[in-house]
């Protein structure tokens, strides 16, 4: 069931573009059905190994601080979710997206597209190699800047376990004015969006490591054991 303390509300007037898009009527709870408690199953044909490394698709290396971002995907019982598709997109080191609607006058990086994907392994673990995105301005309010973030999309094992979220970096000075980060009104839940610096994942002479564990809510119809 939707938890108002832990989910962002639909209507959050500080986020200007929520005002005309937030549903106003109460959500309806349907009888639990098999359509929502099943979901697409992913396999090796959905990803290539190189899809998890966002730094290898250009002629040369992208500009920026090279990162290893890894973590574990579990359900709310702590059980690892294997074979879950993660999709990642982000701005480049100067805060610019490869997108026709991004008007931020910061340079594109010919060696960085900013999209990746991978599947979790048998223990629910995933790992991406990328570069640290820059913050960017976005006109929501006066002098509005998004804290540096990675966008993540996850499927879990059922339609109900679907999650789209954003990962932030510890100590970002822009948190105080960001309505998207602060739309999570429970501060202890909001902290779950912040990765931790992970020195054990940092690769000597090569890349800094961050850990971002992801917990998916919602149940799958079939017993967990049969789907792993």
């Amino acid at each position: 069931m939707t938890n108002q303390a832990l989910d962002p509300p639909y209507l959050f007037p500080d986020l200007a573009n929520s005002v005309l898009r937030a549903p106003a009527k109460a959500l309806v709870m349907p009888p639990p059905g098999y359509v929502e408690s099943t979901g697409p199953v992913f396999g090796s044909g959905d990803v290539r190994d190189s899809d998890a490394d966002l730094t290898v698709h250009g002629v040369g290396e992208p500009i920026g601080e090279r990162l290893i971002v890894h973590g574990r995907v579990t359900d709310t019982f702590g059980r690892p979710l294997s074979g879950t598709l993660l999709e990642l997109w982000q701005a480049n080191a100067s805060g610019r997206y490869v997108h026709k609607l991004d008007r931020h006058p910061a340079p594109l990086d010919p060696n960085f597209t900013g999209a990746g994907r991978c599947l979790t392994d048998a223990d629910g673990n995933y790992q991406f190699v990328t570069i640290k995105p820059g913050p960017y301005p976005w006109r929501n309010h006066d002098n509005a800047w998004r804290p540096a973030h990675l966008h993540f999309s996850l499927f879990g094992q059922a339609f109900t376990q679907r999650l789209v979220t954003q990962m932030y970096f510890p100590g970002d000075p822009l948190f105080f004015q960001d309505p998207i980060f602060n739309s999570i009104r429970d501060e202890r839940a909001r902290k779950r969006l912040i990765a931790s610096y992970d020195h054990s994942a940092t690769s000597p002479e090569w890349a800094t490591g961050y850990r971002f564990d992801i917990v998916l809510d919602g149940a799958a119809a079939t017993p967990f054991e049969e789907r792993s």
Partner: protein
Amino acid sequence: MSIVYPVTDVTASPGPTPWQTVGPFFHLALPYSAGSEVAGTSVPGRIRLAGTVYDGSGEPALDALVEIWQPDQAGTFVTTQGIYEKPDGFRGFGRSATDSGEYEFFTVKPGPVPTIDGRCQAPHIAMSVFARGLLRRVVTRIYFPEDSLDMDPLLDSLPQARRSSLVATPAPDGYRFDVYLQGDQETVFLDVGGR
């Protein structure tokens, strides 16, 4: 206007990872070329399912992403393939962006599947809509006008005036299903658990 939120320092509590908006820039990662092909051209009974996502001012949302999930005509779910491979078959999943004004899928009409506690339901497709300005997705169901809708437990629980928002309308090549995020015609959105 400027915004200032209080900054405190607490430790994260265990629990589900919260939702955040998909934002306006997902196109570089999420839509894919065969995303509309829930059923490939060789699948018998292939239909087109399309529609527009409207905001509260009646304007089409041109930066929304729509996903659907459904069983095949026999009510069977695909469990053996992913979303990118085997685009010629039926895969049950589709993803379409609305930047041209409409989302669009090529699929088949699903067969009926019961509730988990065994009650009959009318055939339906599960739909998620993501967009800039939606801090988390909205979820709905698409039903079909020619079916016996009175026996469906979800539709039966809704006031008559709101039921029609979940029923597709016939189109020359299949069906049309528009989504109204807000306003007098607001679509019935569902709390399916999870976040």
